[in-house]
């Protein structure tokens, strides 16, 4: 937080204008470099506290893809058909992956290696996210500078460099699409604003390219292609149409759509799905408006009125026709042309109603209130001030920022994951708010300090003309007053009129009005600094404690203060890679698919790219079925090993038993003989003695709790905080082959089919199973 203060104070201390500008430029540059260093280094906690390792689930897939890219080149990557996942369907990686991140890291790796710096692919992948968060901070600087000048820009950049929400997705090792996508998002917005402010076709082209990079990087590009049309529409409606707006928008739609269609994963979706229709509609509207303005220019006012009626009627007819066609096209598709995730955005209850697979992902759940405080901290209080600051004066660019924050707040309220989109907007607005507040407060202080009273007037005037402050000084003064109202720290709003302004303009009186009492200003500055300090402390804490865990390695603090490390996942994966055949298939819930392929190099049935609901439902059905039916499902899919994650021994809450209801729901969605109520006792999910027999006999229960009673004699589950319901049982169709040190991962092998088929006499128990085997098979196995 040292940086924003020096930004504000730095330039004002210089005497002559040019020298001051030069000095300010140098300082701003140094500050930007420092912000970059800060953004990079605050994300290294994970490497320091743990190790240089890829985190979580999706990053492992990206890492594997990057490895493939660096080994086989871009064409093979483009055409990569991966036969080690989604067995036996396989997955066309090149056509289903957003290649931006992979290509970026691959390029970095190639450049670095061609410079004879022998970095491994993994190292490059681990540090891609921190590097790009530095870039994102700089992009935020540029964007905010376009909106409210460099002071606000630097503040916003500093805030973004350490906003916890963004840190959570971009710590070293979190090698995920969002890492580069946030940079691309902010940079695209910057170029849009830049084009809007300059009206330069050059920037418009750059903007399309930046948009292309964003499309390459993340599915969230639809946010851009909807937000910018919204803004254009807003500008048109508020009568702010200009040729700059046209230049900013029209090339983006044309070039951007063409470029987006080049990305294999988007392809024809760029013109076929509803997510993109808004941009085309606005594209039509802007042309109609442009035509209207052109005609207005060449016609006399009288003629124009006639023309207006004509154009409006024709335009309305055309619009109606287009809308009718659109509705017809959209209505003909079953999901109304919207993908499931996008529908979730518009109707938050959609996913939980219809698509359990989307609802089952925790990051697709709506956030809780504390998570706002956790993720953006004091920014949540500064944002309203920033919005007000943006309203005075309301320029094209500031209205865009307002629109950005409003939409992203809505989206973040729908999905936790989109908090990430909110974070840059919050930082930009908070940066504006803080910068404006400091601007006002420091000026008030300067006016009243006896030592520099003579200078102060000059300074204030110059601050108006210098680039530090946005074009209209007059309106800004009003706005800062509004800002002051918002601040809880500024209780004293008594107006000082002692200082006399030299300028005989209307702004003089108003400027006098905004000068705050010295004490109040000093206290306000101190409080603001304190607020910033809180923010820094929180961010550093969040970076160090909350968001740096790689989740592949877990730690816990023991009672005597020692650190206990749970490295069970890697233990299990390396067991698999050393003890099983290369072509063996491993079944697990889809969460562990990416890790299994990347770390154990074994074929999996389903993974985190949840593109085939039926296949996932099959695995869910197998997990919720009794042993024999599960064995048959797995056997028909050539599965050799089954992997379950079990936290009951050490109290690891996100284990398979806790995810089990989702397996039941997803499985039951495709195979109706799996019914959720069968697993619930009076609507309650329990695994103790009160649990239903279906629950106690399903494969997931058995594989999780097999031999569990041997650990403590009672079978006390430390996650569910209860004793398990069925303690002593044997497995008939599976055999335990490996259990990790803390029992977190358990691997079972499918027994081969029985060599002989037993007769029925004497062993009545076995005879029942033999006789029932046949008729059950036809019904329960979804593949037959």
């Amino acid at each position, binding site marked *: 937080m040292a940086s924003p203060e020096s930004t504000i104070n730095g330039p004002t201390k210089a005497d002559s204008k040019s020298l001051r500008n030069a000095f300010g430029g140098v300082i701003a540059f140094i500050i930007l470099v420092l912000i970059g260093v800060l953004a990079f280094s605050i994300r290294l906690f994970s490497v320091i506290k743990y190790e240089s390792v890829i985190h979580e689930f999706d990053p492992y897939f990206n890492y594997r893809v990057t490895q493939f890219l660096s080994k086989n080149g871009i*064409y093979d990557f*483009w*055409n990569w*058909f991966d*036969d080690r996942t989604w*067995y*036996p*369907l*396989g997955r*066309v990686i*090149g056509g289903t992956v957003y290649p931006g991140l992979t290509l970026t890291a691959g390029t970095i790796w190639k450049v670095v290696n061609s410079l004879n710096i022998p970095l491994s692919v993994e190292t490059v992948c681990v540090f891609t996210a921190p590097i790009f968060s530095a870039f994102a901070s700089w992009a935020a600087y540029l964007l905010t500078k376009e909106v409210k000048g460099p002071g606000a820009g630097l503040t916003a950049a500093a805030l973004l460099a350490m906003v916890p929400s963004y840190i959570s997705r971009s710590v070293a090792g979190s090698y995920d699409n969002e890492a580069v996508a946030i940079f691309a998002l902010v940079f695209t917005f910057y170029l849009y604003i830049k084009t809007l402010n300059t009206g330069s076709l050059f920037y418009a082209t750059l903007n399309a390219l930046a948009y292309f990079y964003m499309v390459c990087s993340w599915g969230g590009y639809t946010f851009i292609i909807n937000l910018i049309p919204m803004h254009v529409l807003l500008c048109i409606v508020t009568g702010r149409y200009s040729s700059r707006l046209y230049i900013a928008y029209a090339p983006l739609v044309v070039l951007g759509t063409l470029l987006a269609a080049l990305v294999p994963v988007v392809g024809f979706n760029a013109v076929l799905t509803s997510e993109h229709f808004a941009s085309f509609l606005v594209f039509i509207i802007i042309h109609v408006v442009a035509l209207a303005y052109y005609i207005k220019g060449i016609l006399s006012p009288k003629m124009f009125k006639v023309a207006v009626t004509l154009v409006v009627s024709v335009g309305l007819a055309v619009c109606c026709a287009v809308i009718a066609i659109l509705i017809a096209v959209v209505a003909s598709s079953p999901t109304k042309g919207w993908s499931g995730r996008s529908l979730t955005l518009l109707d938050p209850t959609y996913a939980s109603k219809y698509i359990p697979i989307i609802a089952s992902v925790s990051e697709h759940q709506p956030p809780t209130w504390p998570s706002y405080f956790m993720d953006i901290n004091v920014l949540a209080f500064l944002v309203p001030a920033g919005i007000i600051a943006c309203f005075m004066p309301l320029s094209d660019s500031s209205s865009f920022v307002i629109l950005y924050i409003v939409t992203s707040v809505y989206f973040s309220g729908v999905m936790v994951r989109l908090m990430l989109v909110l974070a840059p907007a919050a930082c930009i607005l908070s940066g504006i708010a803080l910068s404006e507040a400091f601007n006002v407060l420091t000026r008030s202080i300067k006016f009243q300090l006896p030592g520099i009273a003579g200078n102060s007037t000059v300074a204030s005037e110059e601050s108006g003309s210098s680039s530090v402050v946005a074009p209209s000084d007059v309106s800004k003064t009003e706005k800062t007053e509004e800002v002051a109202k918002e601040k809880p720290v500024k209780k004293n709003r008594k107006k000082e009129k002692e200082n006399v302004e030299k300028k005989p303009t209307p702004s003089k009186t108003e400027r006098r009005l905004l000068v705050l009492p010295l004490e109040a200003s000093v206290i306000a500055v101190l409080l603001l600094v304190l607020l910033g300090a809180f923010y820094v402390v929180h961010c550093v804490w969040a970076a160090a404690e909350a968001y740096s865990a790689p989740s592949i390695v877990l730690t816990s603090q023991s009672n005597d203060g020692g650190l206990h490390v749970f490295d069970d996942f890697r233990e299990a994966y390396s067991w698999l890679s*050393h003890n099983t055949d290369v*072509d063996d298939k491993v079944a697990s819930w889809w969460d562990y698919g990416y890790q299994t392929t990347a770390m154990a190099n074994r*074929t999996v049935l389903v993974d985190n790219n949840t593109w085939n609901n039926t296949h996932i439902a099959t695995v869910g059905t197998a997990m919720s079925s009794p042993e024999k039916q599960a064995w048959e499902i797995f056997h*028909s*899919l050539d599965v050799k090993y089954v992997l379950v994650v079990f936290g009951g021994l050490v109290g690891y809450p996100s284990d398979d038993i806790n995810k089990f209801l989702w397996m039941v729901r997803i499985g039951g969605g495709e195979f109706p003989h799996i019914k959720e109520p069968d697993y619930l006792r009076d609507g309650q999910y329990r695994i103790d003695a009160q649990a239903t027999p279906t629950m106690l006999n399903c494969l997931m229960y058995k594989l999780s709790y097999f031999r569990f009673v041997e650990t403590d004699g009672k079978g006390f589950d430390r996650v569910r905080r209860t004793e398990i319901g069925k303690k002593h049982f044997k497995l008939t169709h599976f055999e335990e082959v490996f259990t990790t040190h803390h029992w977190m991962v358990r691997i079972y092998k499918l027994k081969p*089919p*029985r*060599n*002989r*088929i*037993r*007769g*029925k*006499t*004497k*062993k009545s128990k076995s005879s029942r199973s*033999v*006789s029932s*085997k*046949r008729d059950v098979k036809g019904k329960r196995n979804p*593949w037959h």
Partner: protein
Amino acid sequence: MAKLAIFFTLTLSLLPFLSHSFSPDTPTDRRILVLLDDFSLKSSHSIFFTSLKSRGFDLDFKLADDPKLALQRYGQYLYDGLILFAPSVERFGGALDVAAVLDFVDSGHDLIVAADTSASDLIKSVATECGVDFDEDPSAMVIDHQGYAVSDVDGDHTLIAADELIRSDVILGKTKIEAPVLFKGIAHSLNAANTLALKVLSGSPSAYSANPSAKLSSPPSLTGSAISLVSVVQARNNARIMISGSLDLFSNRYMKSSVQKAGIPSKYEKSGNEQFVTEVSKWLFHERGHLKAGNLRHLKVGETGEPAMYRIKDDLEFYVDIFEWSGNSWEPYVADDVQVQFYMMSPYVLKTLSTDKKGLYHTSFKVPDVYGVFQFKVEYQKLGYTSLSLSKQIPVRPFRHNEYERFIPTAFPYYGASFTTMAGFFIFSVVYLYNK
């Protein structure tokens, strides 16, 4: 590199086990342990034993309760086959028990079990484990008032002249067994769902299982052709098991005696027992009906060498070698019903293979227009033959980006339209900008 080394050491260390456990090169058994109730059986069933010896088997006769009985030593099996001619034994001697016998079978060895009216629980439980259920009534015998042998002296029609034989040249040999087979013993049944077990000799429709000396108080549980007199089981690992309800079936006395079935005028000088027993034992000890398949290979038409991956709509050729064991050498197996599946969750292609009569089977087909991880699957299950189950995984990929057609003829109007638009726009710009 390290992986390769591990693999090699693993293979090398496994090699001795692999070569000893079941040698695919000579599947015929050599060393056979015969367990007897008492040594008098050795002479009373000598024809059967001599026929085995003359075919090159090493017979090792032991009493079933011999305390030094052992099937394996130092983890290796001492025998390739086991004949249990000890129906009344309650406990085996030495280290042998039911589990040991079943392990012996599960490791690919063959077994003959002969029961009797005096069959013990031990023998019955061995049979049950193999999928054969003997009648639970310990005093019951198979009675057939229609199909009894005329020479039946007791008059209770328990000596049966059975002629309901399985129709399989593989199991019973090419020469038809003309004479009925004499049988006196207990009945067993097979579970209909048991695909591994076969009735070789089944009861006639008029047979039933009951105590011949007692009056029937309730309908017999086993009747008609549900009764199996002699069954064979081929386990999933191709170990073969023969279970007979009668030990006398193998005896010299039955083999030599003449037979006439009641109600049928034709009388045979010699019963069918000898031929039946010899032929079934030939099948049982893998002298017949043993197939080996291997060398599954495939290639793209016009190319040599096996590709690691196919593209959709590729034309490919598929080869597999199948040989049959003739008793002393591998002969080409000739059949017209071997099929290959191109399988991904369900068969996308099912083709019958053609053979060159030298053991090589071949077909060619087009890869379906579906990508995924396919398998070439040869699943060959034919009555009496060892079941073949081979598969080889092969991924099928979609077109590469540059394998599509570059220009589509039907789209030429669109190409033309876009180029004329571009040209028109260019001309318009020039005219508009420079023509004032």
